[in-house]
């Protein structure tokens, strides 16, 4: 198993270089086959790694540079625990799905697409495995650069370029903030290894520590699309090809939150332990605002992919709230939620890709009733909406139950209600699309600015839905269900989260190679109340969708849906598509978060 550890990063990179070299004359099918095989092999490797670290995390020292006396680390390590490993597994599964889906599309990309996807996958795997701060940054930038290029893949229209450009500017500024934060931490501790930094910082949390925490976490929250750092996400998703959106929404964004959790629990926790409550409040406020902004903007959009993008933002707020509870249980809830949301959202984006393939349009008003004959896609689409509502039997239910219960225990009583809001409004928006596009109910949908940006179809032939498109979409949606079927998954997640949050155990394990005790299995509380809550959310979503579609027939009761659908002009205006605006908001957000951290944690 140890030999396997570097392979999810190394093999895709080497294959990417090989494909870039021979892709030009080796032909399309060869590149497709080889890249899918590589991604599939990575699924196997990351699954084996997950199996290997299930009971005991593993530390792997590159170049065979083990820690020296006095805890000095000169090399780089991968420190893999079950949480990092399961996220890498998600990465490789989604990449495989995306590559299979793209079997029939991108006829004219000169085979540059597959190498970039493989690099993207390798970077995200490395990002979730690494135990070194600067290595984390390197993988952050590697996945960013691959993502920028993938985002601007369709260069026949100006919109993808604008989306990719905005994405690149905001994320690169965030990246430089991370470097500044790393520099500050290095000045204090003279180390780059998480464990060594954590040990060296000790319990001394002064303004410098807070500043570096601020800079690094803002950089990662920019990736995680937390309001007000989120503006790039909708632009990028609206224009990126569907299989790329699967990776963006399904896992790249979640990795931002994961990185905040990783660095908080391995480095800053004991230094900031006195201020846990204040810090939790900051995360909660950020998460709450993100839920609201994402939710309202989701319902107000009629561009299919942009709608899904805003729903990602909204759910991202929930995940930040889960992680931001700063407890093991909240973290476990975040991981389960991220996994299930990732596969469900991936499936939904693939459905949007199928719609684009068959009907050549992506705006809701143009699509009205035209999806009637596409019943397999319609079925998957409505299942996806169901999953977004968190209803049984989808895995989102497990995340919801853990985060909600723990939030109540931490006196954050609004969190369960926020879940209901987010689930109802995002699932409502997706169901609204389902009723209008696939069933042709109600009147023609209204439109908005963003949905006028049409997308050129990714394919040539539009008569059938190829199996290669339907299969990955179905597989992802089914995965979203099957997470619930894994016995004891909540207990396992919580046990591993306990290990994740144990800073001194982590340092012992990495620096002194001391095995930590396995925490006790946790009792799993019954899901009954959670099923009721998400059931309410599902019913609300259904009501919202039906009420919107049949607004005229139902009458005045449902008139508010018009403003939900078409109003929010202030919010809309803020999403201006201007990179200067986005960076101004990034600065303002940093100042606000930083100001409140400095104030609360003094």
């Amino acid at each position, binding site marked *: 198993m140890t030999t396997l550890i570097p392979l999810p990063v190394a093999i895709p990179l080497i294959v990417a270089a090989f494909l870039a070299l021979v892709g030009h004359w080796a032909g399309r099918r060869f590149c497709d086959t080889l890249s899918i095989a590589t991604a599939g092999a990575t699924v196997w490797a990351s699954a084996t790694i997950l199996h290997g670290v299930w009971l005991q995390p593993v530390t792997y020292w590159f170049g065979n540079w083990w820690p020296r006396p006095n805890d000095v680390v000169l090399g780089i390590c991968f420190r893999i625990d079950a949480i990092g490993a399961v996220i890498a597994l998600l990465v490789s599964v989604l990449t495989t799905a995306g590559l299979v889906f793209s079997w029939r599309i991108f006829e004219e990309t000169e085979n540059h697409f597959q190498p970039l996807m493989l690099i993207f996958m390798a970077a995200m795997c490395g990002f979730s495995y690494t135990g070194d701060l*600067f290595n984390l940054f*390197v993988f952050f*930038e590697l996945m*960013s*650069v691959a993502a*920028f*290029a993938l985002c*601007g893949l369709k*260069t*026949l*229209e*100006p*919109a993808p*370029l*604008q*989306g*990719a*450009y*905005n994405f*690149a*500017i905001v994320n*690169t*500024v965030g*990246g*430089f903030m991370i*470097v*500044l934060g*790393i*520099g*500050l931490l*290095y*000045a204090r501790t003279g180390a*780059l290894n998480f464990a060594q930094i954590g040990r060296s910082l000790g319990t001394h949390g002064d303004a410098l520590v807070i500043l570096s925490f601020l800079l690094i976490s803002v950089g990662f929250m920019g990736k995680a699309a937390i309001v007000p750092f989120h503006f790039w996400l*909708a*632009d990028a998703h*609206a*224009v990126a090809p569907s299989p790329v959106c699967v990776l963006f929404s399904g896992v790249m964004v979640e990795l931002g939150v994961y990185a905040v959790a990783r660095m908080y629990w391995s480095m800053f926790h004991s230094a900031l332990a006195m201020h846990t409550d204040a810090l939790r409040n900051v995360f909660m406020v950020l998460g709450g605002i993100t839920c609201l902004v994402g939710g309202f903007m989701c319902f*107000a*959009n009629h561009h299919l992919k942009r709608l899904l993008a805003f729903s990602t933002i909204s759910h991202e707020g929930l995940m930040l709230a889960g992680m931001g509870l700063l407890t093991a249980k909240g973290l476990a809830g975040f991981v389960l939620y991220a996994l299930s949301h990732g596969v469900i959202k991936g499936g939904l984006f693939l459905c949007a890709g199928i719609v684009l393939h068959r009907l050549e349009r992506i705006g809701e008003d143009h699509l009205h009733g035209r999806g009637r004959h596409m019943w397999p896609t319609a079925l998957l689409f409505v299942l996806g909406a169901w999953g977004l509502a968190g209803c049984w039997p989808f895995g989102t239910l497990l995340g919801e139950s853990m985060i909600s219960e723990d939030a109540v225990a931490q006196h954050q009583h609004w969190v369960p209600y926020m879940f209901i809001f987010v689930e109802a409004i995002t699932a409502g928006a997706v169901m609204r699309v389902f009723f209008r596009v696939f069933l042709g109910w109600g009147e023609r949908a209204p439109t*908005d*600015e*963003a949905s006028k*940006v049409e997308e050129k179809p990714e394919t040539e032939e539009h008569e059938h839905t190829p199996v290669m498109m339907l299969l990955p979409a179905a597989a992802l949606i089914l995965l979203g269900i099957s997470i619930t079927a894994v016995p004891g998954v909540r207990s396992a997640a919580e046990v591993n989260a306990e290990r994740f949050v144990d800073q001194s155990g982590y340092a012992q394990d990495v620096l002194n190679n001391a095995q930590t005790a396995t925490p006790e299995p946790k009792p799993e509380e019954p899901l009954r109340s959670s099923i009721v809550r998400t059931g309410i959310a599902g019913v609300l979503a259904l009501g919202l969708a039906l009420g919107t579609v049949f607004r005229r027939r139902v009458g005045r009761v449902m008139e508010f849906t018009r403003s939900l659908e078409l109003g929010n002009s202030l919010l*809309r*205006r803020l*999403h*201006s*598509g*201007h*990179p*200067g605006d986005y*960076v*101004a908001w990034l*600065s303002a957000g940093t100042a606000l978060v930083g100001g409140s951290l400095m104030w609360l944690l003094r």
Partner: protein
Amino acid sequence: MMLHLSYFIAGWIFLWGLYGIVTSKNLVHQVVCLAVLQTSTYVLLLTVGYKVGGTAPVFADIPVGTPVVDPLVQALMLTDIVVEATVAALLLSMVVKSNELANTVDPEELRILTG
């Protein structure tokens, strides 16, 4: 205070870079401002690893044990420079391409994605 000047200069350059990006009226200018913002990380890393009286960490002509400045920050900066150059190259090609397709490099006029 005086001895912290270099760190403040890093912050100063960082803020100017941000200012340039925010107020830019030309995407090429904006990319250059991003490069300027990047230099703030150089200043910080460079001065953080500096040791009074230290020489360059190259032991070709000096014996091992001579006080030298920290080599690690220099290794980090090398990576940093590559990141800057590559991101700038990628961004520039996007700007050129969007000029070809939309005939403008003014972010104000290039607002296709809104709402």
